[in-house]
């Protein structure tokens, strides 16, 4: 394939596909959860809105993964920010519960 940078092997592409699919899914859910807990709307509204937004966010994450120069930095950023956001929503939930 022309334009494909050298050293882009089958394993590299598999890794990107996996990161885009699983990492992108996690990322989309994490953003949606932060919105659920931080937006000043009732829970039902937030959950539905969050779910509706997951799909475009997932697409965005997939595009991010495939357009990134190098695999390692994008993996760290995507998974790192997902974990941070999941942590943030867990704290927001605990704050709310107490």
């Amino acid at each position, binding site marked *: *394939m022309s*334009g*494909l*940078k050298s050293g*882009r092997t089958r394993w590299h592409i598999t890794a*990107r596909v996996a990161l885009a699919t699983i990492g992108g899914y996690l990322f*989309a*859910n*994490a953003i*949606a*959860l932060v919105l*659920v*807990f931080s937006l000043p709307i*009732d*829970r*039902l*509204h*937030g*959950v*539905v*809105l*969050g*779910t*509706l937004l*997951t*799909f*475009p966010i*997932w*697409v965005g994450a*997939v*595009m991010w993964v*495939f*357009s*990134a120069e190098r695999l390692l930095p994008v993996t760290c950023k995507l998974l790192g920010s997902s974990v941070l956001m999941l942590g943030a*929503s867990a704290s927001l*939930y605990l704050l709310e*519960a107490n």
Partner: protein
Amino acid sequence: MFSSFRQSMTWLHTWSGLSLCWLLYFMFVTGTLGYFDSEIDLWMTPEVPSQFGKGSGSTTLTNITLAQSKLEEIAPDAQRWFISPEAARETPRLTIGWLPKAGEDGTQPQFQNRILDPATGEFATARETGGGQLLYRMHYLLHYLPGRMGYWIATFATMLMFIGLISGVIAHKKIFKDFFTFRWARGQRSWLDAHNLLSVSTLPFQLMITYSGLVFTLGLFWMPFVVLGGYGFDMQRVAGLQDVLRGPVVERAEAPGTLLPLAELTQTAIETWDDKSLRILIVESPGDENATVTVQGAGVGRNRPTAKYMGVSGELVDESREISLPNGALHFALASVDLHEGIFAGPFLRWLYFLAGTMGAAMVATGAIYWVESRRKKDVSATYSRGHRFVRKMNVATIAGLLVAIGVYFWANRLLPIDFEGREQWEVHCMFLAWLGCFAHASLRSHEQAWIEQLHLLAATFVLLPVVNGLTTDMGLVHTIGRGDWTIAGFDLTALATGALAFAAARHLAHKGEEQRPIETPITLTEHTAGS
């Protein structure tokens, strides 16, 4: 992954599109036929005349009473009843449906439905058929797959479609210029132009149909983290969301109760409605003390009036929840689902839906063909990779073969004996056996031959379909046009048009093959000589 963003998006567009393109084509074709599901139902049950437009006011209430007594007779202990009084387009006949009691071991029985003769209140004698409903349900159940597996696979394919659409728009350099460009008969360039023209001109529809297809999964927990996490993994509160989506659930009392006359409840419900047309009645746990009756009107989304009553006492449980919810996101979701289904569409809009859906199928098909054509080698004796040969065969057997198979489904409806054991299932088996035959054929013949032969077969299947219809029923084209029955005539005319298009495509390919052959041979020879 590439040196430029646009190149990356092109790569993403190519592979997200190609990897499940045949499934997407299947979903587009069967889903688009779903816009005419009721019309196909009518064609596939020629014994029962259409009652469309004849049901109104008092007849509707009489029909509901007829349906109730029949259901009480045959399915008193069912989990759920459905009554469609002949009123709206999607219910052109008085139809009853019921979900029988679950088995001792908890197995879910099959949903049953039958047409009633409004004159007698007995089952109308119609051939067993899955009709247009079965074709329509295929686009997300994928027919042979067990349980909800079809939903999951279809949703995943839809997600790839969504990625393909967005990355395709970005990959485009000159989206509006391309819209006005079409280079006819230029090989791969023409396929790309056709793909662009189809996609760009129907882009709003394709985005709507794809995104709303994903919104359907709202109740399916495709995004469990948002839902479960949002409620702190408290299953009781999650069930609260289900209540909002489906209306409050009333548990069975497990004590017998006598259901009120459904016609009375219906009358009470529609009295307050502006639009009094009725879509469906749903009775949960009939025969139980806690039976509920939901009366649903024919409007769209928040404008669809709904009332839910306790079946024994007549007490109102819930009314028009779509209107009372102050929830923008939920309204958006419900409206998306309604736009996807297009139940509200009148004849003109319905044809527009059909056209846009067909163009969606053509968009997927031209994309898949472009992939093959853009990788075609100049040297005709060149060998192709296994992947390339696989895509070529899949393209023929899906793009032409699926349509042949659907034609065979209609043929089977007319030709299988009326009392054939398991008739309904065998209509579908015939369809998939024919499709399997197309895969076998495509893998045995050369690429060009496979296209020409399957397109000819497709043309024959659809051009002869009205003939078979005319010979086996009394609603052939001559009769239906004569008496102005445009629903049935429309089916036959669409079949003729499909056949004619396939024939034109087959002739075009055959001529092109004849023109090319004498020129190609000497070139190959010289290239071989030059190379050796």
